[in-house]
C-alpha cells in the first residue's frame, strides 16, 4: 500500500473538497471533513511510526515511479530516521490545529491548513530533489493565503515579506539542483550524497542551499520575515509555520550530506551565526511586550541551538539538535495555543497590560507555567534533552563555544520567567482580566496532550532518538567522508 502517497494526497484532496464544500450547510460538512481527515492522517502516520524499522538507516516505505523521464525526474518517496519524527510531529500538530478550530472558522482556512499539512508530508518524504523542491515551494502558497486572508492587521506587509524572502532563498536552491543534475544526470538526492565535488563547487552549492534553508529555519540575518509572519498569522497557520522544521530538515537532508567538505570549511562561520542567533534573539525576546512576538523570537533563538548542533560535527550535538527540533515544535505550538486562548478572550496579548491571569484562569496559568518550564529547558521536559546535548557537544568542541551556547540557560530563563511574571502572577491590574473565563474542556485537552508529550519525551527521550539514531549515525559517518 502506498502509505506515504496516501499521507500526502489525502489532506490535499480533502483540502480541496473542504474548499468546495465551505458554503454548503453553513460550513458544517467542511469542518467535519477537515476533522475527519486530520484524524485519518494522524492514524496513518501512527501506523507509519509503528511499522518503522528503527534499527535500519535505509529508506523505508519507498515508492518509485518515473515522472518526467526526459530529465530523469521521479516521483520517489521514502522516509528514514531523519524524516520519520517530523512525519509524526506534522500529524500531531495538524490534528491539534484542526481540532482547535472553533465552529465559526472558515472552510477556506481549514483547506489551507490541510493542504499545507499534505505538502509538508511530501517535503519530508520526497527522495527526488525536484519533488522535494516542488513540495517545499508549494507550501508557500496555502500559507501565504492563510496569513494574507485570515491574518492580523499587518498581514499584507508580513505576507509579502514572508513570500519574497522564502522565494528568494529557494531560487538559489533551484539553481543548485540544476547544477547537480548537470553533473550527475539524476535528481536522486541519495545519488548526490556520493557525488564527488570540488571544494570550490561545494562552497558555491553550500551558499545556494544555505540561502534556502537559512531563510526557512530561520537563521540570523535572514530571519526578518519570521517574527512578523508568526505574529500576523492566525494561530493555526502560525503553529504550522513554526512547528514545521522543514528548513532545518533541509540542512540534514541536502546541505550536510551533499557538500560535507564545504560544511567543514565553513563550520566556524556557521557556529558563529548560530551562537549569534542564540544570544541575540534571546536578548531581543527579553525586550518584547507582545506575547506572540516573544514566542517567535524564543523559537528562533532555539533554532540557533539546532543549527549549532548541526555544525559541531559531533554525534551528541547532532542528536541533541534533532531532539531539540521536535521539542521546539511542541513548545512553540503549545505557547501559541496559550497566546491564542488569551487573545480570543482579551483581544490582545500585551504583556504589560494584563497581569495576574492566574486569578481568573488557573488552568491556563498552570499549563502556561509548565510550557514555560519546557521552553526554559527544565529537566524532565522535552526542552531539556536537546538543549543539554547540544551544550555538551559544544563544550566538547571548544570551551568558548560551549560557554556561549550555555548562556541560553540564563537568557532563556530570563525572558521566559519575566513573561510568566508579567502575565501570570501578580494582582489583577486590568479590569478585563478579572472577567476572563478559564480554558474550556477542548482547550484543556489540547494543551494537556502537548504537555503530556513534552513530559513523556522529557522523561524518556530514547523513544524519539531510537527511531532517528541509525540515520543520524549514518549521516555523521557520511559527513566525515571527504568528497573531494
Amino acid at each position, binding site marked *: 500500500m502506498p502509505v506515504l502517497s496516501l499521507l500526502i494526497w489525502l489532506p490535499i484532496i480533502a483540502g480541496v473538497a473542504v474548499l468546495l464544500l465551505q458554503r454548503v450547510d453553513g460550513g458544517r460538512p467542511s469542518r467535519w471533513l477537515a476533522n475527519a481527515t486530520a484524524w485519518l492522517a494522524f492514524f496513518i502516520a501512527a501506523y507509519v511510526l509503528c511499522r518503522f524499522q528503527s534499527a535500519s538507516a535505509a529508506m523505508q516505505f519507498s515508492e518509485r515511479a518515473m515522472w518526467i523521464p526526459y530529465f530523469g525526474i521521479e516521483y520517489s518517496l521514502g522516509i528514514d530516521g531523519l524524516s520519520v519524527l517530523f512525519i509524526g510531529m506534522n500529524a500531531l500538530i495538524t490534528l491539534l490545529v484542526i481540532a482547535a478550530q472553533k465552529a465559526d472558522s472558515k472552510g477556506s482556512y481549514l483547506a489551507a491548513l490541510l493542504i499545507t499539512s499534505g505538502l509538508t508530508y511530501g517535503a519530508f518524504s520526497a527522495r527526488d530533489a525536484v519533488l522535494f523542491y516542488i513540495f517545499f515551494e508549494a507550501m508557500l502558497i496555502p500559507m501565504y493565503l492563510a496569513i494574507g486572508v485570515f491574518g492580523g492587521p499587518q498581514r499584507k506587509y508580513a505576507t509579502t515579506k514572508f513570500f519574497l524572502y522564502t522565494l528568494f532563498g529557494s531560487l538559489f536552491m533551484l539553481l543548485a539542483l540544476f547544477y547537480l543534475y548537470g553533473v550527475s544526470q539524476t535528481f536522486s538526492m541519495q545519488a548526490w550524497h556520493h557525488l564527488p565535488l570540488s571544494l570550490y563547487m561545494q562552497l558555491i552549492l553550500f551558499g545556494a542551499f544555505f540561502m534556502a534553508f537559512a531563510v526557512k529555519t530561520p537563521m540570523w540575518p535572514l530571519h526578518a520575515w519570521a517574527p512578523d509572519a508568526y505574529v500576523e498569522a492566525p494561530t493555526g497557520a502560525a503553529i504550522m509555520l513554526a512547528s514545521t522544521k522543514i528548513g532545518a530538515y533541509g540542512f540534514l537532508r541536502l546541505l550536510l550530506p551533499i557538500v560535507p567538505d564545504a560544511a567543514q570549511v565553513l563550520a566556524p562561520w556557521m557556529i558563529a551565526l548560530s551562537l549569534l542567533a542564540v544570544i541575540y534573539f534571546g536578548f531581543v525576546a527579553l525586550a518584547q511586550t507582545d506575547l506572540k512576538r516573544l514566542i517567535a523570537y524564543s523559537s528562533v533563538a532555539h533554532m540557533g541551538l539546532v543549527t549549532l548542533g548541526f555544525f559541531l560535527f559531533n554525534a551528541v550535538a547532532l542528536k541533541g539538535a534533532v531532539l531539540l527540533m521536535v521539542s521546539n515544535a511542541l513548545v512553540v505550538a503549545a505557547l501559541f495555543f496559550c497566546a491564542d486562548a488569551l487573545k480570543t478572550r482579551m483581544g490582545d496579548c500585551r504583556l504589560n497590560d494584563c497581569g495576574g491571569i492566574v486569578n481568573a484562569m488557573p488552568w491556563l496559568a498552570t499549563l502556561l*507555567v509548565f510550557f514555560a518550564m519546557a521552553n526554559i529547558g527544565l529537566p524532565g521536559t522535552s526542552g531539556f534533552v536537546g538543549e543539554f546535548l547540544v551544550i*555538551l557537544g559544544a563544550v566538547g568542541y571548544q570551551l568558548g563555544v560551549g560557554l556561549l551556547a550555555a548562556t541560553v540557560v540564563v537568557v532563556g530563563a530570563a525572558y521566559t520567567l519575566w513573561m510568566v511574571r508579567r502575565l501570570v502572577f501578580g494582582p489583577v491590574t486590568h479590569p478585563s482580566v478579572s472577567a476572563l473565563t478559564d480554558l474550556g474542556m477542548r482547550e484543556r485537552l489540547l494543551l494537556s496532550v502537548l504537555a503530556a508529550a513534552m513530559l513523556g519525551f522529557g522523561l524518556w527521550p530514547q523513544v524519539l532518538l531510537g527511531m532517528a539514531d541509525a540515520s543520524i549515525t549514518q549521516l555523521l559517518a557520511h559527513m566525515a567522508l571527504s568528497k573531494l
Partner: protein
Amino acid sequence: MLALIPLLPLFAALFAGFFGRRVPRGWSHWVCCAAVGISFVLSAYALYKVVFLWPALGIQAEVVTLYTWLDLGSTKLTIGFLIDPLSALMMVVVTLVSFLVHVYTIGYMKDDPGYARFFSYIAFFTFSMLMLVMSDNFLQMFFGWEGVGLASYLLIGFWYTRPSATKAGMKAFLMNRVGDFGFIVGIGLLFAALGTLNFGEIFARVDELKGLEVSLWPGLEWSLLTVACIGLFVGAMGKSAQVPLHTWLPDSMEGPTPISALIHAATMVTAGIFMVARMSPVFEGSDAALSFMIIIGATTAISMALLGLVQNDIKRVVAYSTLSQLGYMTVALGASAYSAAIFHLMTHAFFKALLFLAAGSVIIALHHEQDLRKMGGLRHRMPITYWTALIGAWALVGLPPFSGFFSKEPIIEAARFAEVAGHTYAYWALTLGVFLTACYTFRMIFLAFHGEPRYGETSHGSHKSHKAHKAAHKEHHEQPKESPWVVTVPLIVLAVCSVFAGILFVQPVLFGDYFGAAIRGDYVAHPAMAVLHAEWRGIISYLLHAFLTPPLWLALAGIATAWYFTLVAPKAAGRLTHGLGAVFGVFKNHFYIDAFYERVMVRGTHSAASWFVRGGERFWSEGVLVQGTARLVHWGAQSLRYLQTGYLYHYAFAMVLGLLVLITLWGRN
C-alpha cells in the same frame, strides 16, 4: 523498594495537586504526610542497612538502574540510584526534616486557600531532592537539581498576588540559573573528557583527567580538572547561595515559613555542598578549585554574619545565618574535609530548621508580625517555642555539647590545617565568624523572647497583606499564645536532634570510617582531615579541649555582647549604629550587591535588549535588509526603466552598437 522512596512523595504531590481542591482539605495533608513518612522509614532502613548490614558483607555501595533515559551509542544515560553512606545519610536528613515540616505545615498554613497546592509543592520538592541525593549520575542529579529549583521558585512565589514574592521567586530561579550555567559547563567538560556522566565511571577514571588541558580560547590553556571543578562549584554557589550569587536567599523569605525551613535552610541550599562532597574524587585533583572554594566560603561566612547583625526581620536574621553557615560548609569542602562539611550540613539541617520553625511559631502567634523590634518578652507566653529556639541557638553558636559544636569546631580546625592557598584567611574569618554568629543569634533570641513585650504597639498598617489578615484583626488584642501541637511537636523533635546529633554521631561520621569509599580525600596532598584524625582523643577530651581554643570564648563573648546591647543598654546599640553610620549604611544595603545587580546587571541587560531591538531588529534587519533591499530594487527598476524608452530608433541604435561589439569580439578570436 528504593524507587518508592522518591516516588511516594511524587504520587502524593500529584494527588494533592490534581485532586486537592476536590477532596476535603484533610486528605491533602494526610496523603502527603503519610507518603513522606513512609519515605523516611524506608530511608532509615536504607541507612540501617548501610551502617549495620553492609560492613559484614563487605558492600560499599549499591547501584540500581531503573531505565535507560537516552542511549547515545558511546554511552548510555540512565536513571538510577546510588546508595552509599553519603546518600543514605542525606536521604534520612531530607525525609526527616521534610516530614516534620509537613506536619508543621498543617498548623502553619491552616487558613490558607492554597493549602492543597502548598502540600503538592513541598511533596514535589521532597521527590526532587531525593532524586538529587540518590542519583548515580550527573543527568539525574541535574534533574533533581532543577526540580528543587522549580519547587523553590513556585514556593517563594506561593502568594502570587504579592509582587515582591513573585519577584523574589524569579530572582531565585535566575540566580540559580547563573549557577547552572557553570554547572552545565562543568558537566560538559567532564563528559567531553571521559564520555560518561555516571559517577562510578567518572571516579574510576579520574586519573585520566590529570594532565589534560583545555583551551579557554585558542592559545590560553588551563587544566581541565580545574576548569571543570570551578564550573561545578559555580553551580554549587548558585544553589548553596555563596557570595556573590547569594542575594536570592534573603529575598526567598517572601515564601511561607515552612519552606524557608525546609528548602532555604535544611535541604535544598545544601545541595551544592552535597554535590561537591559527592564529587570529592574529582575536586581532590585541583588545588586551584579547592582554594577558590575556601576563599569564597570564608568570604560568605564572614560577610553574611556581619549582615545578620543588622537585620530586623526575624526570618532574615535566620536567613543570613544560613548563608553564613553555608559558607562554613564550603570552607570545609575547600579544606578537603568533606565529611566535616556533610556533618555540619546534617546538624545545621536540624538546628536551622528548628530556628526557622520556631520563628514561624512566633510569627503566627503575633499574627504575621516579623519585625524583631515589635516582639519581646515572649518566653513566658510561648515556653516550648522559647526553649526549643534557645536550644537551636546554642547549637548554632556551637556551645558544647550541642550538635553545632561538634560540627563547627572541626571545620575551623580543618581550615587551620589545610594547606591550600587562602586557608589562613579562612581560619581567621571563621573564628571571627563564631563571635558574630553568637551576636546575631542571641540578639534575635533576646529581642524576641526577653525584655519587655513590644507587640502591643503594632499598628494595623504593618500587617503584611496576607490571607490571615482578617483573623489577625479579630484576635488582635489577645495575648500571643503557644502554638498547637502540630507546630510544637516538630520543634521538640528537632530540638532533640539538635542536642544529640552531634555527640552521638561525631565519633563514627567524622572520625570513624562511616563514609568509607563514598568520600575520597587525598590525605597526603590535603592533610587537614588527617591531622584532625591524629589529634582526636575521644569525645570527653574534645569537649575539654574546647575550653582551650578561642571559638568557645568568642562565642560566649558574642552572647555577652548581644545581651549588653539588647537587654542591658539598648540605647548603646543606637549610639553605636549612629557612631558607625557609614559602616552600618553599607551593612544595611547588603554591601550594595543587590543595588549593583539591580542597577548594573538588570538594567544593563534591559538596555542591551532594547538596543538589540532598535539597532539589530528595526535598523539593521528591517531597515537595511528589508527596506533597503526593497529600495535598491525599486531604484534599480527606476533606472532600468529609462532604457525602455519605447522609441524605435533607440532600440535600433542599441542593436547596431551591440552587433558591432559582438563582431569585434568575434573577429579578434
